[in-house]
């Protein structure tokens, strides 16, 4: 593998992490006023006596967290040290839960929901797009193209709202929200699994369906140009069966650049999925982020933002390194 490419790409990933940490550190300090002080006094003002002790501890934790009396550089260094220890401080609204705990409780749900449905969406959409580019497809299917265009224009979470209306309010088929039946405890058995899938179905569908349009249209574009290539003509001349040509000569070549698109749009996918979680009160990090914003729980907001940026940055980093290995055509563009 091209060393220069790997080094450059690694540098970019490190810079992404540095940027994320620095932004989290700088922005609250750049903007006048102290939102956390405000939040604390607001809590003290509204809460009854039993919370007050907790708040003082919290205030102490908060002061060490920020170490506001120290010089900026030292604060910055300390901030880094904490982050590298995965110490993002305490949740302001669920004291004494730590931000790390709070995030690690939510993360698996997001990985499950968003990961699975994005994969399904990508596969179905790409196949559909590939088929739509195939000249011998029935004409009726062509009518799907404008439909896909409209679907691709609907943001994930808006589709979620519509699905809730149709399948929760009008037809009571699916639960309105949550990841499992409220109050039940989860076990490793079929019943729990069924419950989880039942709850994940609608939010999953929002991500799957809303994504299909864009994947299909993009893949169709890729396939049309692939199908014009000489190697497709020769494959036909070789007397290969259509299925073989479609899958191994067409789809396979269209799919690889489609993976690049997946990488490029991963940020969008995750942003969209965050809002789907909000609409469905799905207990992943998107919903957690929403709750933290509502309760002005700044440490949690920062922690989640950091986790999002770093994990997506890492995923893209790995994808960029792996891609040249799976696509033999790839040219390293070091220009």
């Amino acid at each position, binding site marked *: 593998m091209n060393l220069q490419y790997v080094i450059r790409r690694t540098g970019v990933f490190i810079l992404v992490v540095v940027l994320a940490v620095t932004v989290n550190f700088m922005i609250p300090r750049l903007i006048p006023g102290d939102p956390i002080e405000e939040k604390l006094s607001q809590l003290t003002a509204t809460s009854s006596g039993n919370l007050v002790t907790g708040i003082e501890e919290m205030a102490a934790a908060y002061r060490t967290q920020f170490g506001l009396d120290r010089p900026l550089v030292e604060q910055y260094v300390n901030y880094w040290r904490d982050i590298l220890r995965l110490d993002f401080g305490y949740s302001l609204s669920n004291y004494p839960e730590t931000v790390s705990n709070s995030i690690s409780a939510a993360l698996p749900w997001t990985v499950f929901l968003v990961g699975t449905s994005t994969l399904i969406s990508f596969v179905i959409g790409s196949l559909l797009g590939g088929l739509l580019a195939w000249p011998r497809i029935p004409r009726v299917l062509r009518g799907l193209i404008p439909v896909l265009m409209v679907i691709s224009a609907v943001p994930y979470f808006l589709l979620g709202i519509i699905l809730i209306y149709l399948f929760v309010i009008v037809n009571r088929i699916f639960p309105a929200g949550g990841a499992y039946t409220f109050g039940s405890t989860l076990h490793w058995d079929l019943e729990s699994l069924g419950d989880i899938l039942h709850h994940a179905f609608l939010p999953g569908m929002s991500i799957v369906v809303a994504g299909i349009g864009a994947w299909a249209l993009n893949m169709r574009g890729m396939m049309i140009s692939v199908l014009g290539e000489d190697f497709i003509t*020769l*494959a036909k*001349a*070789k007397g*290969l*069966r259509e299925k073989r040509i479609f899958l191994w000569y067409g789809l*396979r070549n269209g799919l690889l650049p489609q993976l690049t698109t997946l990488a490029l749009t991963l940020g969008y996918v995750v942003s969209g999925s965050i809002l789907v979680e909000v609409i469905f009160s799905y207990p992943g990090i998107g919903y957690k982020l929403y709750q933290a914003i509502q309760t002005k729980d700044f440490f949690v907001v920062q922690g989640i933002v950091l986790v999002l940026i770093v994990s997506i940055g890492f995923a893209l980093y790995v994808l960029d390194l792996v891609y040249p290995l799976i696509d033999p*055509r790839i040219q390293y563009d070091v220009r």
Partner: protein
Amino acid sequence: MNAPVLQVDSLHIHYQTLAGMVKAVNGVSFNLYKGERLGLVGESGSGKSTTALAIIRMLEGPARIIDGAINLSGTNLLALSDDEMRAVRFDRVSMVPQGAMNSLNPVMRIREQIRDIYEAHGKLPKRSELDGKIAHLLTRVGLKPEVAGMFPHELSGGMKQRVCIAMAIALQPQVILADEPTSALDVVVQRQVMETLGNVQQELGAAVILVGHDMGLMAQFVDRIGVMYAGRLVELASVEQIFKAPQHPYTQQLIGSIPNLEQKKLFKGIPGTAPSLLDPPSGCPFHPRCSEAFEPCTLDVPPLRETAPSCWVACHLYEKVVSHDHPA
């Protein structure tokens, strides 16, 4: 002479375009014999590729075969269903593509792309034999067996074209179509690749139709030459005859326009513009550019006639020496 492997009989092919019907092939008939090398020449747009593609039924888009028959040792290819035709491709008629650079699937190893051919025709050898068979094929076209494990981007243009030739002979077809197989390669490689094609063709005893512009290459490679003009075969004769005693005025000009290194003569080109295929001239399509045209030329299309043994011309000038009317 032995029986022909391929008989093309009054083939008519049109392209339906927005501007109207492009009459690309208008009654082309010829025979191709076992082991023979036939060259098709003619200016750009004269219908050479259209004819060749029709034989393997790979015409694209707006092309319509209006009339005619293509007989491959007894099978009328034009009457086959799509799936029957699929089975014929590369098994009985194969082709070497023009654009060797992009004719191989970039994400498959060469081995897989050759294997595909056997598999599609139900001739996949046993696993233990396949690698040896592929290695043998590659050696025959002058490649190292290791090429099987490579991806197309690891090969040079000439190597890719050799791979294409290897694929074309994999199932030992009776006819190999080669439409400008080397035009994308540089001159030195061109000759080598043509030699390879010639060698394997000879070993195989397959007949070859070579489409091309390069008269020099034709002279070296083929046995007979068919000259096409505006979708018609205007002359069909042995290489010696075409070069030494061309009969059709178009062939004469064509041969005359080849620059001759000894005489350092500048090359002339053929005066006049190529005919419109949308609205072809009446009579002989060449008459507007023909210096020897006389009355009947504007009225009747001259049929292809044998004027000397194995020498066929479609020209009114040779009316008197008629013997019989079907090409041999």
